[in-house]
């Protein structure tokens, strides 16, 4: 890959994002990681396999939020609302109608995506921090609604028990190892799709909106449409993840979808590096696995965790694995 030499030749400008997007590790690196991923459950205890399962779930959620925050630059700090809608769609439909989880996965994604579209449509024009507080507001509205048990649907503070499991080749995916593979296969599929999307016209269009909305608009991009698409897609992936979460956690209750949860997801995206897919994977590791590693400190665990967050930001303000495209553009912006 050649670095952009700063000349304003049209062709190099156009080619830049395409070549610079290769912020993923090399083919060799990926193969080694996949191999480690496959043998990991045979080496680790059930406890650590479970940690890896939740890590995978947070990677999915982080990836979904990364579309909104990282790719388009919309400050969404209420993402767990869509996760909640997906989880509750699964829980309610599974409880009432006994639908299969394989069917509920796309259905929950659709429900959350629809909610994302409808809720974001009137507020998508808001900028920065105003959008941030509105999404927090939506998160709170949805959480309180779930808590207040409207029409006896959500089970109030106790939530709903999901008895069903994913069924594959006639057996339930229940054992931590099986679940581990299930989650990480979903992660792999999502990463594949999102990398393709990132390199596509839509992905570049999102980044354009993030970098300079007015210029993007002037170039004929329908920025409103681009933002809404990102919001809807992000919400849909979070919703589908809700099904996996419901199957893993068994009990779905409002306390899993608090403002704090949204803040954690937001942190994953920023900590990893905005718009960077490997960054999200590392960021969620930092947010999910690090507290487990700090377990030895028992009561001081979260104290150290807060400190670690501050230190990570001070020493790596651009994120753990920044998107290459992102930094290239930043450098360009500074040299103006």
């Amino acid at each position, binding site marked *: 890959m050649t670095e952009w030499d700063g000349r304003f030749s049209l062709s190099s400008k156009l080619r830049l994002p395409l070549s610079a997007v290769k912020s993923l590790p090399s083919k060799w690196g990926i193969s080694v990681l996949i191999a480690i991923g496959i043998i990991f459950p045979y080496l680790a205890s059930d406890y650590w396999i479970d940690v890896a399962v939740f890590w995978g779930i947070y990677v999915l959620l982080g990836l979904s939020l990364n579309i909104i925050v990282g790719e388009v630059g919309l*400050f969404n700090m209420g993402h767990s609302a869509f996760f909640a809608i997906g989880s509750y769609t699964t829980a309610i439909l599974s409880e009432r109608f006994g639908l299969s989880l394989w069917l509920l996965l796309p259905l929950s994604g659709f429900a959350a995506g629809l909610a994302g579209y409808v809720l974001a449509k*009137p*507020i998508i*024009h*808001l*900028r920065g*921090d*105003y959008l*941030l*507080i*509105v999404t*927090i*507001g*939506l998160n*709170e*509205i949805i*959480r*309180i*609604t779930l*808590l*207040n048990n409207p029409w006896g649907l959500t089970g109030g*503070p106790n939530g709903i028990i999901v008895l069903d499991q994913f069924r594959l080749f006639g057996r339930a995916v229940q054992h931590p190892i099986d679940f581990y593979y299930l989650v990480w296969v979903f992660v792999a599929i999502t990463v594949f799709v999102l990398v393709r999307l990132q390199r596509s016209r839509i992905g570049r269009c999102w980044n354009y909106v993030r970098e300079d909305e*007015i210029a993007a608009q002037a170039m004929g991009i329908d920025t409103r449409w681009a933002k809404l698409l990102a919001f809807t897609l992000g919400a849909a992936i979070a919703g589908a993840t809700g099904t996996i979460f419901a199957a893993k956690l068994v009990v779905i209750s409002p*306390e899993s979808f608090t*403002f*704090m949860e949204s*803040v954690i997801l*937001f*942190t994953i995206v*920023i*900590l990893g590096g*905005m718009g960077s897919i490997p960054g999200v994977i590392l960021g969620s590791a930092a947010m999910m696995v690090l507290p487990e590693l700090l377990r030895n400190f028992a*009561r*001081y665990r*979260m*104290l150290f*965790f*807060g*400190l*670690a*967050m*501050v230190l*990570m*930001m*001070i020493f790596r*303000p*651009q994120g753990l694995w920044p998107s290459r495209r992102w930094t290239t553009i930043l450098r360009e912006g500074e040299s103006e």
Partner: protein
Amino acid sequence: MPHGGLWPCRLRQSPHAESMALFIEQLVNGLTVGAVYALVALGYTMVYGVMRLINFAHGDFFMIGSYLGFTLVSSALVGGAIPLWAALILITALSMVGVAILGVVVERAAYRPLRRASRLTAVVSAIGVSIFLQNAVMLIWGPRYRAYPSWAVPDVSWQVGGIYINLMQILILAVSFGLMVSLYVFVQRTTVGAAIRATAIDHDTARLMGIDVDQIIRLIFLIGPALGAAAGVLLGLYYRQIHFTVGWTYGLKAFTAAIMGGIGNIPGAMVGGLLLGILEMLGAGYISSAWKDVFVFLILILLLMFRPTGILGERIAEKV
């Protein structure tokens, strides 16, 4: 955890109360809580105005103020040696000083290194600070609810035209309006205030005018947390129960208030805080206390849909 269970709003509903009296009573309750929100919102808005940073740890400054006040009130230090009113003033002042020092330390340690970094980086650092402070408080004071002693403020109330007002409500209104007016005068009428306003507009130009920007930011981190701490002590005295998570619950409300008023705008934070308190109490009185926050956030969303920069926020022309 049932929502609103922390410090439940205390409604005194007499079966014979006329609807007008109920309305005014809710208004007074709302003003009381709103004054506290306004004090906390000022901290958010001032930091935002000068640094463009959403200080997620600000709610925790408020919470720590509340805990410091609790320790001071319960300590033997003030057990009768000086009159109660003097003790209360002393306690509030000491908590304010303590939290102000903490604010400056946090700014130096966690925000200053990130001043040149992207805004969201500093936000994550603020979230880290918040987690740190909450857990520090939990380790120091324990994870359970703590209660201010009931003798701290005599439970006196007066009946004015069919509604009840108690001493604590008057105290809260007096102290917070006093602080807000002094802040407003300070920012609008003094040279240092002018320096703060100049820094809020443009750091570099302010520096060229001979303003020490670091000093101004330090000052902001003295004033904001101090106001938050005063609010914490007042609210602790009012509702008695405190918990290490109230920083988030109240911080979120105060941040909402700051946005409602137009973030970065000092009178906006005051208006936003009072409005939010009133809306919340009217929602609790006329809809239901379980749905009051839904009501508040719906109003916020509607407000921002039609006035995207809040009540007093200015419309900033977009740069092309």
